[in-house]
Structure formats: C-alpha cells, structure tokens
C-alpha cells in the first residue's frame, strides 16, 4: 500500500469521509433500537448529527495549565486512532492492507480506551477518576479474551493480514473467535451490562463528567467511530468473501447493522453489573473458551 492509497483509505473510504456519517448512523440505530424496545419513539434520524453540531457551537470553560491542554488532547487522539482503525478495515475486496495490519487495528482500537482512562484522571474530578479506574479494570478484564480471540483466529488461518483473513473461508475455530469477540464488544463499547465506566446514574458519565462543548463532541464522535471499527471488525471476520465490490460493501453494512441491533437488544434487556461481577464473568467464564480456542489453533498449526 503506497502513501496515496493509505491517505485515501484513511481520509475518504473507509476512513473519515465514510466513517463519520457511518458513526452517526450507527449511534442513531443503537439509540432508536433501544428506544423502540423500551416503548419510546426514540430520536429522529439526524439527531446524532444535530447533537454533534450543537456541541461544537458551545463554549467550554478555560482550563489553565498542562491539565487543560491534556484534556483537549485526549478526545482528539481518540478520534484520530478510531478513524485510523476504521481506515484499516477491508470493506472492499482487494483494497490493500499489509501483513500485520490486524495488530495495528487492535492497537488503534485500544487507544480510545486509554485516552478515556487518561481523560478521567486529567479532569481531577472524583467521578472521572472512579470512571477511569473502572475503565482500566474493565479493559484488563475483556482485553485478555479479546486478544486471545484474535490470536486464535490469526493462528488458525496463518495470517495477521485483515484482507487475507476476510478472503479465507471461515473455520469452526474462527467462528469460536468471532463469538468471543462478540462477547467482548459490549464491554469495549460501554454498553449494558458492562457500562460501568460511563454509568450516568452513579458517576455522571465518569471520565466525561468535566467535558463539554467541542471536546465532548469529539468524544461522542470517537465513540461512534469505535462502534464502526469494532462492529466492522466482527463483520469482516464473519461475512463471507464476495468478489463483487458493491455486494461486498452491502453485506458488510448488513452484518454491521445486525450486530448493532443485537448489541442494542442486549443493552435494553440487561442492567448494569458490578465491577467484580464483570471481571469474574470475563476471567472465569469467557477466558476458558478463549484459552481453549488459542490452544486448539496452536495445536492445529503444529500438526499442519
């Protein structure tokens, strides 16, 4: 992939130009689906866009010193990394990529979470610090499973290249890995029952409590881009390989849409778990399957 292709993917498709409207669309689908399942009308189609524009127009109180600068920097870093992660997704067949881009995608997906932790502590609010501590614990809990699932998929298919993974036929181990990824997605996207870091009723959105105006708009955008990247990753691994570009894009969108609907149904049907229950769930229940998947993948690799 040369520089021009990389820039086009990062800035146009499936990067920022595509990903930002897609992020607003996914945020709307999630909010609307949750509302309908709760018997509410839900927001109009353009609401996430209106929210973003409204927040951009608001002024924020000045924060002096390095703390204020850091608070401005974290959401920008989060948006950049999430947009980079979306830019790496092989939405179209033969769209480039390089060996190891899956690892880069995982790193970029993890960066917003790190920024949230740092932002909570930078805000010097007790609610922000509690939220950041929760985010850190949650990140340690689900990331073991998330990374093991990715490793098992990559090891079973002998590649860390996303496009090659998308092109290869799915094996049973890959399906197990995709299932493990799906289990981790609610925690990664701060959805119920793992919405501990941004618990509105307990800690007033946690790390976001001191944010307002354009910085909060950036956090919202970063959250939407995380949705696109995370659901897109699962859709890439789960969707069948199709040579026709428009059909491939359509299948990708349909898969992403149904993943969002499934996660919204889960968020509507469950209540928030306590942090110890969440950690126990990931470390005791899910980790066993992830370790089994990795061991099987490595054994298969040794035998072949």
């Amino acid at each position, binding site marked *: 992939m040369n520089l021009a292709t990389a820039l086009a993917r990062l800035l146009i498709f499936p990067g920022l130009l595509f990903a930002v409207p897609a992020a607003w669309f996914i945020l709307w689908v999630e909010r609307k689906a949750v509302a*309908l*399942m*709760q*018997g*509410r*009308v839900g927001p*109009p189609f353009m609401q996430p866009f209106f929210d973003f524009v409204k927040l951009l127009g608001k002024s924020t109180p000045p924060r002096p010193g390095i703390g204020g600068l850091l608070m401005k920097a974290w959401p920008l870093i989060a948006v950049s990394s999430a947009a980079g992660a979306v830019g790496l997704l092989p939405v179209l067949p033969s769209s480039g990529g390089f060996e190891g881009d899956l690892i880069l995608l995982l790193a970029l997906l993890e960066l917003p979470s790190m920024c949230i932790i740092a932002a909570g502590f930078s805000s010097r609010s007790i609610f922000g610090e509690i939220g950041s501590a929760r985010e850190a614990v949650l990140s340690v809990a689900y990331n073991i499973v998330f990374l093991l699932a990715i490793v098992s998929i990559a090891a079973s298919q002998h590649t860390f290249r996303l496009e090659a993974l998308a092109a290869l036929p799915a094996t049973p181990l890959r399906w197990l890995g995709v299932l493990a990824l799906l289990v981790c997605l609610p925690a990664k996207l701060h959805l119920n029952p793992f919405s501990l870091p941004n618990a509105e009723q307990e800690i007033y959105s946690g790390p976001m409590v001191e944010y307002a105006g354009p910085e909060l708009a950036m956090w919202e955008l970063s959250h939407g881009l995380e949705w696109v990247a995370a659901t897109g990753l699962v859709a890439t691994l789960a969707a069948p390989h199709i040579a026709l570009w428009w059909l491939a894009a359509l299948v990708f969108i349909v898969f992403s849409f149904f993943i969002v609907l499934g996660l919204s*149904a889960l968020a*509507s*049907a*469950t209540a928030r778990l306590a942090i110890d229950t969440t950690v126990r769930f990931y470390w005791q229940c899910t980790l066993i399957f992830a370790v089994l998947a990795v061991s099987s993948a490595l054994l298969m690799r040794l035998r072949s």
Partner: protein
Amino acid sequence: MNILTMLWKNLWGGNRTMLFPARPKVNSGYRGLIKFDPEHCTGCAICKFRCTAKAIEFKAGKGEFVWSYDPGQCTFCGRCVEGCIDHALKEGHAEHALTQESECPPVYLTQGELKVSYTVARKSPAAKAAAPKPAAPAPAAGTPQPESAPQSASGGQQ
C-alpha cells in the same frame, strides 16, 4: 426470557412517548392555564401575592393598572384563582376575574415569550354601583374603591 418477551412486545406494541411538537392529552387532575377577564378584575392584586411562582405581575397606576401573566413561569397551582374567588365574593361579584381552562401547557422557546399584559382602567364608583348584584348573598357588602391610590394597588407596586 421474560425480559426478551417484554422487549418484543414493546417493539411492536406502539410507543408510549411522542415526538415534539405532538402533545399528550392532559389528565383529569390537571388544572389548566389561567384565563383573565379584565371586565371583572377589580385590581386588588391578591392573585399577585398568592402567586408563589411569580408568574403574575401587577403594576398599579393612576386610573389604571397593568396585570401581566407569564404561562412559562406558571405552575398551574390555581392559588390565584382561589384567591380571586374569595375576593370577588367579598366585593359582591358573582363572577371573578380568573378562571382555569384545561388546555395543554403552552410551548415556548425563550423566557417570557408567552407573557401577556392587560392594561385595565379602574372602574369608577358609579360604574361599580351600576354593576348587577350577585345571585348568591355576599358575606360583606362591597365598598367602592377610591379611584386613585387604592390600598391594593399600592400593594401591587411593592
């Protein structure tokens, strides 16, 4: 699984909320907007003193007074209407200046947008005497108020 059944029912069972600007019907306990009738107002300003939400303003002047009402600040408690009834009876009027009508609470975008003001001329003693007598017996006969600087009007300026 019970929660999933509930979600499924919610999904297809219609909405309990509605999109703006649609408004829900008011329930039977709602007391409604304040309606002012300048014909019956004596300018006593009791309503102003009873209004804890400060939705009613009263400014007394020479020969006239200004009565203002801001529905955006009103809590629709009805204390002003109750006060107006008492006063009307004392003054010997069957009707009173304030009533409540159960319309939906109005929508407003800026503070004070719905505020209405009435400039009402004080009635002369002759006009008050010519007013029809009430059907119900009044507890105290109405004393004609002096045209200039009545006690209630000066209270309204506080």
